[in-house]
């Protein structure tokens, strides 16, 4: 008997106020081209909106882009809300303008991976493909 796994469902979004969406759109497209189901939230999402959408859409992972320097606050808020909703099996990863020295603390807080400028799209696709499914 063969089992065909359902495609991974990934929420990709911009959280916070910055509108720089060049990178996030390339990543959404690359994941979609790799056969995943991508839910793109669009701009200016609050952590609350992101988490609500993620739970409603039953996603396996959330990928967030932040270039405004608000990463320490916003990633933590998303993780807290997921945890409060009992949805901390959903993996959170992200990217943007994030100084290296902020990375360890964010990982400690539960961000699975952070991809800085210049990361090959293939690396991100590979990372997502290898994620455990939350469903």
């Amino acid at each position, binding site marked *: 008997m063969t089992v065909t796994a359902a495609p991974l469902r990934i929420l990709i979004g911009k959280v916070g*106020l910055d509108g720089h*969406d*060049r990178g996030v759109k*390339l990543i959404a497209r690359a994941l979609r081209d790799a056969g995943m189901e991508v839910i793109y939230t669009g701009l200016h999402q609050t952590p609350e909106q992101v988490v609500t959408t993620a739970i409603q859409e039953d996603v396996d992972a959330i990928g967030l882009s932040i270039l405004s*320097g608000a990463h320490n606050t916003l990633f933590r808020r998303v993780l807290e809300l997921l945890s409060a909703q009992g949805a901390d099996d959903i993996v959170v990863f992200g990217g943007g*303008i994030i*100084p*290296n020295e902020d990375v360890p603390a964010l990982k400690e807080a539960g961000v699975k991976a952070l991809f800085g400028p210049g990361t090959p799209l293939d690396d991100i696709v590979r990372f997502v493909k290898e994620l455990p499914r939350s469903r």
Partner: protein
Amino acid sequence: MNEMKERKPRFTSLSGIEIHRLYGPSDLKDWTPERELGVPGEFPYTRGIYPTMYRGRLWTMRQFAGFGSAEDTNRRFHYLLEHGQNGLSVAFDMPTLMGLDADDPLARGEVGRCGVSISSLADMERLFEGIPLDQVTVSMTINGPAAVIFAMYLAVAEKRGIPFDRLDGTLQNDILKEYIAQKEWLFPPEPSLRLVTDVIAYCAQSVPKWHPISISGYHIREAGATAVQELAFTLYDGLTYVEAAVKAGLTVDRFAPRLSFFFNVHNDFFEEIAKFRAARRLWAREMARRYQPKDPRSLQLRCHAQTAGCSLTAQQPLNNVVRTTVQALAAVLGGTQSLHTNSMDETLALPTEEAVRLALRTQQILAEESEVANTVDPLGGSYYVEALTNRLEEEAQAYFRKLDAMGGMVAAIEQGFPQREILEASHRYQREIERKERTIVGVNRYVEEGERPIPILKIDPEVERRQIARLSELRNTRDSFKMAGAVAALQEAVACGENVMPPLIEAVKAQATVGELCMALKEVLGTYREPVVL
């Protein structure tokens, strides 16, 4: 045949234009220097808008700066002026750019992070403490809430007794490129265009030396556009603003001499130089054809330039100094009026003082050591540069025709056209890098493991708390009755189609905050959600 073998099957510019092995007279068949070049300072301004260019006066070295509180940024301004910079340029934080006060729940974690936090008139006064506003030109990068921030600036000047006709500077105030690229808008496109026109009309009347708009390609390019797209969309945005102002009853010569432009300078050296030259020629030709101005300054494209942030790499960040130098040289050879050079650490955080100083020194070395500023348009007449200039102008005109056919820029934006064109270009560029068809040193070639970290600017998290406390004090101590009256008067004036600036200045003086004023304007003008293009 073997000796004719070349490194690559095809050579292309960064915009994808095929580049030949050699350029010569056959590439400029219908080209005459009289028609296509003219002389510097004369139509069609290909060689520059002034007869003497940098022999008369060097470009203005203007570093964009802003972080933390108004006091933090004020200190950086003084630092830059002390190190020989001659104009200021304000970077606001995300909440300010989005018209939100520092204590708005949506501002959490963002206050002072990527620019200075300005919510009140008192913040604005602190920002310019000790800066002689009648002597230093000030550029402000603000778009959605541009009219509000400008009202605050004018109120500061008024308080200090500086007459408005002594003020010189630039308000970015270019909302079309926000819908196209940077995505920081507050209202729908049509009402936004009306606010832009109000500022243009008010300046023509009351702040005559001010540049009420900086029509910007920078952000369009950063979002992934090619040089051709940057040129085409920016100039077409410019024509859209001119048309809106003329429709509002202004004669072209009353405001066009104060329009200014803002371009990106990316890595393709000659293509970038050609872009500046093509921009001047195309603007002069289009303005002459469409509006027949009598004042020659209405035909002149004045511009600021900034090196390409998107070209910088987090890997081997010292390499960014070299990239920035090459780009800055292209802007100078292209004939820019002012220039910002990026700092090497900006893919990681806002720049440190040391990094900014090095970026400023880069400009000073170009200006004062390299001798490149000794003659006007040194590349004029180069077969290659002239052919590229022609090609960029032609391709931009092809976009103009498409945009005309779509019913103009606002209609094109609502259909997602420029957004889609830019996304495709950005996707193409990324694919070329991933396939190593284009080299990015330190990223896809000459990669090093275990890089040494460089020092990074840290923003004190206290800034947010302090800003919130200050706002709370303001709300408790101001005359709320007077403030509410001024806000109501503003809403009424805007609903009646009156110019927004006079009631805004009154409301700002009555201590209404950026967030309160933007909310009041949204109640009258509406809000906007973009068509998602993916």
